[in-house]
């Protein structure tokens, strides 16, 4: 295909360097410097998609982030990227692009049939249609998504890498147009560390397509010079292809830098994108403005474009997106497009100006070219199918609210429209600054600064080139001074430009039609989501008043373009329908992200192995060598069970559990939290934190304690040992270690700073091997000869310091299985040595390594709770049948004590811990099952509790479960029911939560 619309080289393209690409599988050629959009337009491609709701043909409208229609799928396979705007995709050799909506194709779209039923899909359609019946929603959604298109995500893993950079600077300049460039230059000269970022492929902003003369040079040459000057500063970082997408608290700005997207998906040059997390002392926002389209009937037909975009394609890219241009404007500024089009050698059919008597300098220049200017007129409708064929033009009244003359048909294939400009207030809005309506610029200006930022140039509502330069320079100097550099005086003369006399624009947000808005052909406000002027008016008639509600009801501004083109028109139309001013109606609030940001960049390197830290015990490698299956407990990798050849998990767990009770087992308990507590007030402090007392705990002794939150609910549990006078070791649960540490520090630091007590986390310092079972003592005796292990000397709940397999050890005789147990703590780097020595010593007793699953089963057989599994933050010690651990006679009112007397804590019918024994012993109730008393009752049933732990117990020969049941302690012997999701019900008897060895005799092994 010949590039019919290529004029030659533009200011930023080189027509001698061709680039091959494909669009919907068809090979096409662009040139160096093209975007995908400019290359498509050069090739005469103007139909690029179908609209979201009505599937109407849509063409390229803009030239940047505001583009609503040209949404593309780029590339294929693992690296494919959906929903990119063709106006922002730089062309590279071999680029594959496909339009994302249009099914089966954009040219023949089956879904266009819904266009005929457009009136059946009013705003709020989704709410109205799909609210009931709810279960059909999945069906609808599937159909809607397929019809809507909107790209497809890659199904493979992302092959690219992404980086995050934490940056600091004195002055961050966002936008490198005329205002941003001068701001950065002044700040840099003052000596500030400057970062200047711009979303486009190169710096310049509006200057890239400008025909102005600056300091006697063509704008693009002046631009090259100042960019080179900036790059020459050692204290300036220039970031092209970098979008500031979010402005967060305390001058924290997120910037997405696209490093290799423009080189193609196969180009590997390190990270594809970088997320710059910039903390700036001062920020200068120079983000520019978006031209506002005019809203007239069928303004969505391909061939209706933004006036400034037409100029950009002509001047910057050397592409004329049509032949016969009709320009429709409300302001002087857009006349430049007619001049540019004329100079490109193509025909300007007419300029239609809604104002009665335009006489500005650019108007005169257009008239001098012999171009017809139709003052006091408006384009009320565009006609054509997949391309504009003609415009219907009529005389308007002075206010632009009514058609007052006959309708003329003017043939053309391109309608450029300009309704003035809307400052890009997005980033300032992110800071909480509420945009303020300013009738003098017919737009919202940024609100009062909430952070160390200022908006300059077009994003502040200043549109003259001279004004942009002046504001930019002063803001740069001021920002530098506030950051501690320079004295606010300008170091450079403000660039000299020719002032062009302009007349005021007219505010025109909805072009009238000969028919009423509701009867006229659709006048589109939001092109991407098919929101029309009549839709907004209908929403008002249906009673919606708030701009935020209208936005959600009509979906205006919800697309990937976030309403950058249409929102202001929509709000003005809304204000008019409500009979309010625009200022009263206000705007919706812009939130991050300014443009879509890839998940890859947000994740950065925190994926795969680096997603989260993994913690290993000192014995981990041994577990791996033994073929252990692992369980994640917090960040810890804990052995779950150790399957032998061909064993299922249940078989392995059965074997491990039986071994513990019949001979001896060994568990890696190193992950338990350990906090070393020292100081003269240590015992007093610990006694305040636990429900029981430690004041009389002698060195060499241990005590089990339960910790409550101040609301009386169980928070953590564990054993605390007195190591020496004023020296204790507190064990916590594996998952609760950090929280307990912070909890102790909180009380010590903020409530009782006078207590002399100090905490040190020693979890990682120790490796803990627990040997448990009737033969545990015999095993330990083989590797420990300096401790008297006899039952009388080394009693239950004692601890001793000795030597185990040559290593200095703290041995605790405490038990989580109910069997004779020793928890052997050695410095972590001796961990594996001691573990292997214990395995060797235990060989004759067939010592069996067991994991967390068997640990859970064994403790459940004994009715020992696991905090966080059998409790959920709403359980008191009494609920857990653990009143014995609460000492109510302590002098100090320990944390949580008073709450145990609250009316709710002593209420009858609280959920209480019980055991459950299924009537069928082989049946294991799923954990989390709800419990009811009457299985025959109507659904929804009255839920009376739930199952917290449930296992098959090989030692008992039947399943066991722990549950919390309302009033459970007084319901022993009753039958309860667990209705399952599949409709089946399991019956179980409430029994004691202690299934095994209720007298606790097992640990008294002689």
């Amino acid at each position: 295909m010949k590039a019919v619309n290529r004029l030659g080289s533009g200011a930023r393209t080189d027509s001698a360097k061709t680039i091959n690409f494909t669009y919907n599988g068809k090979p096409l050629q662009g040139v160096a410097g093209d975007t995908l959009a400019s290359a498509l337009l050069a090739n005469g491609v103007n139909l690029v998609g179908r609209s979201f709701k009505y599937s109407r043909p849509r063409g390229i409208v803009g030239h940047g982030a505001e583009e609503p229609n040209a949404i593309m799928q780029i590339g294929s396979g693992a690296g494919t990227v959906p929903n990119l705007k063709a106006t922002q995709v730089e062309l590279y050799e071999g680029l594959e692009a496909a339009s994302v909506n249009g099914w089966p194709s954009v040219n023949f779209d089956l879904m266009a049939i819904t266009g005929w039923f457009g009136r059946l899909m009013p705003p709020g359609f989704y709410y109205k249609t799909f609210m009931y019946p709810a279960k059909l929603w999945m069906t609808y959604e599937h159909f809607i998504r397929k019809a809507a298109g909107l790209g497809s995500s890659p199904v493979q893993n992302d092959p690219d890498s992404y980086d995050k950079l934490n940056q600091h600077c004195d002055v961050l300049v966002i936008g490198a147009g005329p205002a941003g460039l001068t701001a950065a230059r002044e700040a840099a000269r003052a000596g500030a560390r400057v970062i200047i970022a711009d979303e486009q492929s190169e710096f310049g902003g509006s200057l890239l397509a400008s025909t102005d003369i600056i300091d006697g040079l063509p704008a693009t040459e002046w631009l090259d010079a100042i960019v080179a000057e900036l790059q020459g500063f050692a204290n300036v970082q220039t970031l092209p292809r970098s979008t500031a997408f979010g402005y967060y608290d305390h001058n924290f700005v997120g910037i997405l830098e696209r490093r290799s997207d423009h080189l193609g998906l196969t180009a590997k040059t390190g990270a594809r994108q970088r997320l710059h997390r910039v903390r700036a002392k001062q920020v200068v926002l120079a983000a520019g403005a978006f031209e506002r389209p005019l809203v007239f009937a069928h303004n969505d037909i391909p061939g209706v474009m933004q006036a400034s975009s037409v100029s950009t394609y002509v001047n910057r890219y050397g592409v004329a997106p049509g032949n016969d241009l009709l320009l429709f404007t409300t302001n002087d500024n857009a006349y430049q497009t007619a001049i540019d089009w004329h100079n490109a050698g193509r025909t300007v059919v007419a300029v239609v100006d809604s104002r009665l008597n335009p006489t500005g300098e650019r108007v005169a220049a257009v008239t001098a070219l012999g171009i017809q200017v139709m003052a006091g007129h408006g384009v009320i409708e565009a006609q054509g199918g997949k391309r504009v064929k003609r415009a219907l033009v009529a005389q308007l009244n002075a206010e632009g609210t009514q058609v007052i003359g006959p309708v003329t048909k003017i043939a053309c294939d391109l309608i450029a429209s300009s309704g003035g400009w809307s400052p890009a207030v997005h980033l300032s809005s992110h800071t909480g600054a509420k945009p303020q309506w300013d009738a003098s610029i017919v737009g919202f200006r940024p609100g009062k600064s909430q952070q160390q930022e200022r908006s300059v140039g077009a994003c502040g509502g200043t549109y003259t080139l001279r004004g942009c330069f002046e504001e930019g320079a002063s803001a740069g100097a001021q920002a530098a001074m506030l950051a501690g550099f320079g004295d606010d005086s300008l170091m450079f003369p403000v660039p000299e430009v020719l002032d062009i006399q302009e007349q005021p624009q007219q505010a025109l947000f909805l072009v009238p039609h000969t028919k009423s808005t509701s009867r006229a052909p659709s006048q589109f406000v939001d092109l991407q989501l098919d929101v029309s002027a009549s839709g907004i008016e209908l929403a008002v008639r249906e009673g919606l008043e708030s701009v935020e509600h209208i936005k959600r009801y009509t979906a205006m501004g919800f697309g990937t373009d976030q309403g950058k083109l249409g929102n202001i028109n929509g709000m003005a139309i809304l204000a008019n329908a409500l009979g309010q001013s625009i200022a009263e109606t206000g705007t919706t609030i812009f939130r991050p992200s300014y443009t879509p940001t890839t998940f890859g960049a947000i994740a950065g390197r925190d994926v795969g192995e680096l997603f989260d830290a993994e913690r290993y015990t000192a014995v981990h490698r041994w577990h791996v060598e033994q073929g252990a299956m692992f369980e994640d407990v917090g960040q810890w990798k804990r052995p779950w069970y150790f399957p032998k050849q061909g064993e299922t998990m249940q078989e392995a767990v059965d074997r491990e559990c039986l071994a513990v009770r019949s001979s001896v087992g060994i568990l890696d308990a190193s992950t338990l939290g350990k906090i070393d507590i020292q100081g003269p007030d240590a015992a007093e402090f610990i006694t305040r934190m636990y429900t029981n007392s430690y004041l009389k705990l002698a060195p060499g002794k241990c005590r089990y304690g339960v910790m409550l939150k101040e609301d009386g609910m169980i928070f953590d549990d564990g054993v605390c040992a007195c190591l020496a006078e004023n020296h204790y070791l507190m064990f916590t649960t594996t998952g609760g270690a950090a929280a307990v540490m912070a909890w102790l520090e909180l009380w010590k630091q903020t409530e009782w700073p006078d207590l002399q007590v100090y905490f040190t986390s020693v979890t990682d310092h120790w490796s803990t091997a627990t040997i448990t079972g009737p033969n545990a003592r015999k095993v330990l005796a083989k590797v420990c000869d300096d401790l008297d292990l006899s039952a009388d000397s080394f009693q239950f709940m004692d601890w001793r310091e000795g030597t185990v397999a040559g290593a200095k050890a703290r041995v605790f005789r405490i038990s989580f299985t109910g069997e004779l147990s020793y928890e052997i703590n050695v410095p972590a780097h001796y961990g594996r040595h001691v573990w292997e020595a214990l395995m060797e010593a235990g060989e004759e007793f067939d010592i069996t390594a067991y994991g967390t699953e068997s640990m859970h089963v064994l403790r459940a057989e004994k009715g020992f709770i696991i905090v966080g599994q059998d409790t959920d933050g709403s359980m008191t010690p009494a609920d857990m049948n653990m009143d014995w651990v609460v000492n109510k006679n302590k002098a100090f009112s320990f944390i949580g004590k008073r709450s145990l007397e609250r009316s709710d804590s002593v209420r009858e019918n609280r959920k209480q811990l019980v055991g459950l024994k299924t009537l069928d012993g082989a049946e294991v109730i799923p954990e989390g099952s709800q419990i009811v008393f009457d299985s025959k009752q109507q659904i929804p049933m009255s839920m009376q509790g739930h199952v917290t732990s449930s296992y098959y117990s090989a030692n008992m020969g039947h399943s066991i479960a722990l549950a919390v049941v309302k009033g459970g302690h007084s319901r022993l012997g009753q039958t309860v029911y667990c209705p399952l999701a599949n409709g089946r019900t399991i019956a179980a008897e409430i029994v004691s939560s202690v299934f095994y060895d209720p007298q606790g005799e097992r640990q008294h092994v002689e």
Partner: protein
Amino acid sequence: MLLIHCPHCREDREEEEFHYSGEAHIVRPLEPENLSDEEWGDYLFFRKNPRGIHHEMWHHTAGCGRYFYATRNTVSYQILETYMVGEKPQHTADSAGASQ
């Protein structure tokens, strides 16, 4: 993301290093047993939720591990001061009101 000055470290650090730990200056009653359920409930559960100046506790979890207080404007998220446990704030809702 907030930038928080840790008065112990005497450095401005990123919010990621800190944990918010609730309202500051809530004193635990000395004799809980002498309080009614309602009074104890007030201490346990009722917190200020001001629009504007708020005194709060922060924990420098990934830093020095110490607690401190901050006076923060809940509207603008501006942190007016951070100070040590045991100290009194310089900025209060009254002083802010007076200065406006």
